[in-house]
């Protein structure tokens, strides 16, 4: 029963309601659409802040819980709650949505109300995914989330938007169908859709392995992990700026979040047995994709590939805990890897979002994403160059930026697991710098590249605000990640204990 203010429900439904209102306003008062969208996104962000301020860091239990029966026949509940793992992701979502609304302000003209509404509705669904504690509710929201994104790419996307949106949809849908099967299987076994029940129910090794693989199919596509990553560059390239930002900042986190909420606690023994698979795929993501990113000629593709490589650190950080546990028979030192992966998720949300916004700023001016079309942009846009270099450095993982924290923690932890894992992961030091700074060199530096570049105007106040808002968390987390780590800690410790506790 709910006695407190239903903050999670508000975070789920308020943006959806806002989206509907914006849609209606698009017919009645089209000029108010932007301000309405901004109002709702800021309001939702304001509502989400107490999640942080009133969060009890001392417990791993779910907080702000709401639990109502939804479909009694099938024991489906409307069950929401957050812990230290999901709460920061919700804040990330509400924060990035504000940015996306501002970023689309003067840029989007075609079906503006629908555009804004799509992002608001999306926001509600994403908040729901991060707070759902009922398997079916999670699944419904997970799939529902695809629809606005599909529309965003398909309607406001680039020339090959149809191919990209269908590829995106089929890829992710195919993966999640397996997840549905797994969820139904567990319902049949336990008689409940409650995720926390799933986590506690005993399961044999075969069942665990199948469940793990089913979830892996869903989550690996979303993260995305090699080799099911090829939808991402296409989707990013065709998506409008706002779509890319949400895709990179939030949607990619869904898969990684799924590993923590489902795979590790529900199928700990299978996770343990198949850890090498995930670790190998993570290292491939870091190294293979790092090489691929170097040779990209399209700015968005480059950032997209860099996202895949960075997400490799997330999955690596999660799964090395099993290697360490196997080696030392203790969980000490494993928490750092998981927390590093989580920080990497949050950081990557800001950094990759910001980089896509930067690409968007350039695209709005010259209408091309080809790196060769630029050159010497710093001469015309020094303020923009400042931000882009800052975010590039965060992408490189420079200490003092948020991008460093996760990589540092994951690499340090993987050394505890195995020298060669750390060795592979550390390739990012070189590759990350190579692709990011080579991009910066070709786009920003040098003499003014051509006549088009010569006409470019430096960022407007609006763009300054958007990039500036991104820069704040990037720097603050880099200088002082302790509060973020503190929020996660209890939940991660609990999770690690679940993960090493055999269910057999």
């Amino acid at each position, binding site marked *: 029963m709910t006695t407190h203010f239903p903050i999670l429900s508000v975070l789920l439904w308020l943006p959806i309601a806002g989206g509907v209102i914006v849609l209606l306003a698009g017919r009645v008062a089209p000029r108010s659409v932007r301000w309405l969208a901004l109002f709702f996104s800021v309001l939702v962000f304001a509502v989400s802040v107490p999640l942080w301020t009133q969060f009890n860091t001392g417990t791993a239990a779910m907080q702000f819980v709401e639990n109502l029966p939804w479909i009694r026949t099938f024991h489906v509940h409307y069950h929401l709650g957050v812990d230290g793992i999901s709460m920061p992701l919700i804040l990330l979502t509400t924060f990035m949505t504000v940015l996306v609304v501002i970023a689309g302000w003067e840029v989007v003209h075609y079906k503006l109300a629908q555009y804004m509404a799509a992002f608001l509705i999306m926001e509600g669904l994403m908040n729901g995914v991060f707070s759902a504690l009922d398997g079916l509710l999670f699944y419904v929201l997970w799939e529902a989330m695809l629809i606005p994104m599909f529309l965003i790419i398909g309607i406001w996307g680039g020339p090959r938007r149809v191919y990209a949106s269908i590829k995106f949809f089929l890829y992710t849908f195919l993966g999640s169908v397996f997840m549905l099967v797994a969820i139904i299987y567990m319902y049949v076994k336990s008689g409940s859709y409650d995720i926390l029940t799933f986590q506690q129910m005993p399961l044999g090794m075969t069942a665990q392995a199948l469940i793990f693989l089913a979830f892996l199919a869903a989550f690996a596509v979303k993260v995305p992990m090699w080799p099911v990553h090829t939808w991402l560059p296409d989707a990013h390239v065709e998506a409008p700026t706002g779509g890319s930002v949400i895709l990179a900042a939030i949607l990619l986190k869904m898969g990684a979040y799924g590993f923590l909420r489902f795979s590790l606690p529900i199928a700990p023994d299978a996770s343990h047995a198949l850890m090498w698979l995930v670790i190998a795929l993570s290292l491939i993501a870091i190294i293979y994709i790092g*090489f691929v990113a170097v040779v990209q000629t399209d700015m968005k593709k480059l950032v997209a590939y860099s996202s895949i490589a960075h997400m490799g650190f997330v999955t690596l950080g999660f799964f090395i805990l099993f290697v360490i546990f196997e080696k030392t028979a203790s969980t000490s030192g494993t928490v*750092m890897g998981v927390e590093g992966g989580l920080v990497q998720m949050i950081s990557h949300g800001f950094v990759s979002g910001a980089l896509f916004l930067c690409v968007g700023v350039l695209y709005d001016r010259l209408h091309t994403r080809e790196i060769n079309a630029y050159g010497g942009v710093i001469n015309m846009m020094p303020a923009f160059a400042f931000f882009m270099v800052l975010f590039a450095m965060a992408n490189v993982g420079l200490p003092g930026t948020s991008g460093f924290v996760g990589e540092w923690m994951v690499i340090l932890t993987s050394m505890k697991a195995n020298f060669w894992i750390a060795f592979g992961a550390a390739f990012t030091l070189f590759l990350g710098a190579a692709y990011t700074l080579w991009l910066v060199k070709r786009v920003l*530096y040098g003499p003014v590249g051509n006549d088009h570049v010569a006409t470019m105007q430096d960022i407007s106040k609006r763009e300054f605000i958007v990039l500036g808002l991104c820069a704040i968390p990037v720097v603050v987390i880099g200088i002082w990640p302790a509060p973020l780590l503190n929020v996660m800690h209890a939940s991660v410790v609990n999770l690690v204990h679940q993960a090493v506790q055999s269910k057999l």
Partner: protein
Amino acid sequence: MNPAMPTIFLIIVLAPLAAAVIAGIFMRFIPRHFSHWVTILGVAVSFVLSVYVLWQMLYNSMGNFNVTVYNWGVVGNVQFQVGFLVDRLTALMITVVSFVSLMVHIYTIGYMADDPGYKRFFSYIALFTFAMLMLVMANNFLQLFFGWEAVGLVSYLLIGFWYTRPTAIYAGLKAFLVNRVGDFGFLLGIALVLTYSGSVNYAAVFAYAPQLAGQHMQLFPGLAWSVPTVICILLFVGAMGKSAQVPLHVWLPDSMEGPTPISALIHAATMVTAGIFMVARMSPLFELSDTALSVVMIVGAITAFFMGLVGIVQNDIKRVIAYSTLSQLGYMAVALGASAYAAGIFHLMTHAFFKALLFLAAGSVIIAMHHEQDMRRMGGLRKYMPITYITFLIGSLALIAFPGFAGFFSKDTIIAAVHDSQRAGASFAYWCVLLGVFVTALYTFRMFFMTFHGKERFVVEPGGKHDHGHEDHASEEHLAPGHLAHPPKESPWVVTVPLILLAIPSLFIGWLTIQPVLYGGFFGSSIYVAPNHHVMQRLTDEFHGAANMVRESVTSPALYLALAGVLVAWFFYLYAPQLPALLAQKLNAFYQLLIHKFYFDEIYAFFIAGGTRGLGNALWKGGDGVVIDGVLVNGSARAVGWLSGVLRRGQSGYLYHYAFAMIVGLCLLLGWLLLR
């Protein structure tokens, strides 16, 4: 314990940061002179307080400080903190760093006077100072790594400062990437330290170090490696990047693309010394591994000798000095490898003064020559710019270790230490550093004579067209003379005053400090030397005062090698200037090897840069494009399409098709029932 000290440490690092932020963020709103005043003030505050700290340590016997500023992050029982370890090693470093930086700041007012990026430049160099101070004051590996990367970042920004020049931005990128290769090893080393000791705080790590000694790890199955050796070699790979040791040295000569003041800053105080400092700081770890120390020594020796050779054939005045930096860094590394850490740091200090002096003096020449850097277009400048001439001469004598000058005391100590060392590779290193003395003298005085003596190889054309001579890639010899609109003249006081202020320590710092720093137990507990690595101890027994050391130098081969080098330089470049070209022709293969800097750049460009791109393209087009998208994704789409095409035939809608299928099915079923 002085309770105000932690605050003072904070001010030392934050003053340059605050100045950099003010000058950077408010760049558009503040006047030019404000940006230099605020940054100079910030660095001056650091310098004054650093001197105060050093003073307190030397004369008021202040102890070491190990203070935590804040908790960066806590994960379980691992604490990542930001804090300061200030002992005598640190106190010496911050004083040197802030002093050289202050000189560079003042000098920049003159050097960059006409540059449109004036304010940005001041912001960067103040930030550079901040980063280096954070590095040397760190009390843990996290902050060390922060400073380490931050100097890398600022050097990237500064080398590429003139961002419209393709060569400059290329050099900046190259510096960053090469350093990142070093960081690769460095980070793995730090990770190993944490894995074994369970902490990244120096105090805890060093306390644990003795337990590390006997431990082994298996990198390859069946092959046990000593853990301290692996850790120290990995850490040293980081130092090879920052301190530009072969084969990660390639970024340093290219860093000359940046404005001259930052060359001085990078080469003298802020960046390249980081690696040397780090090894000295980690002496409790390095002392555990003779193998690692041998590696340090041999790498240093190779750098010291072979990079000096390259310096002989350079024609760009700044590049000659750059190669001399490489070579001198090699000397420092050799000292570290011989367990003579104090000597290495001592050379770092003297080198900081005379190298900053040489760079700034070269900059003064470059201003006078209207941004001409090619020595083949200089000559005879001594009569135009006497202050620069004298100070450059002092710097040169210090560099070649002429008895009595600053470099003499430090370099001779290193040579003696290597001579005494019993470590594997020590005899190789000894010959390298000894012959290096000749090479150093040769390239230094070649540069000195080509610049300031001989006949003028430029034409003054009053009112003629301005020829800023930005590189036209002429042939190696027979370069057309340069054209100057005005005769060269001495630089303004903001340039010459730093030169004089740096010339003073280049003259005297060795005399004054060798006794206390090297032999008076100055470093105390900040440097740990294992009892059986007593190189410095033996030198201490042999040391009888600075004056004696100068007197004894007449019996050492080093002095005669240096004199021979000067003599050869004089012979080739003043007495018979036609000879070098002839010699280059005769020894063409060797000359080509040197002029191409042993082909490091070409090899890296082909294998590393080309290899990365080639592999990237192969994985992208082949892996992602053909295999995954082509075969798996679109292939499965096609497979589905084909399958549905096949299945569609089964649903033709013709009754006789269905009837036929039913009959066939029935026959099969019956047959199976009958025959089973």
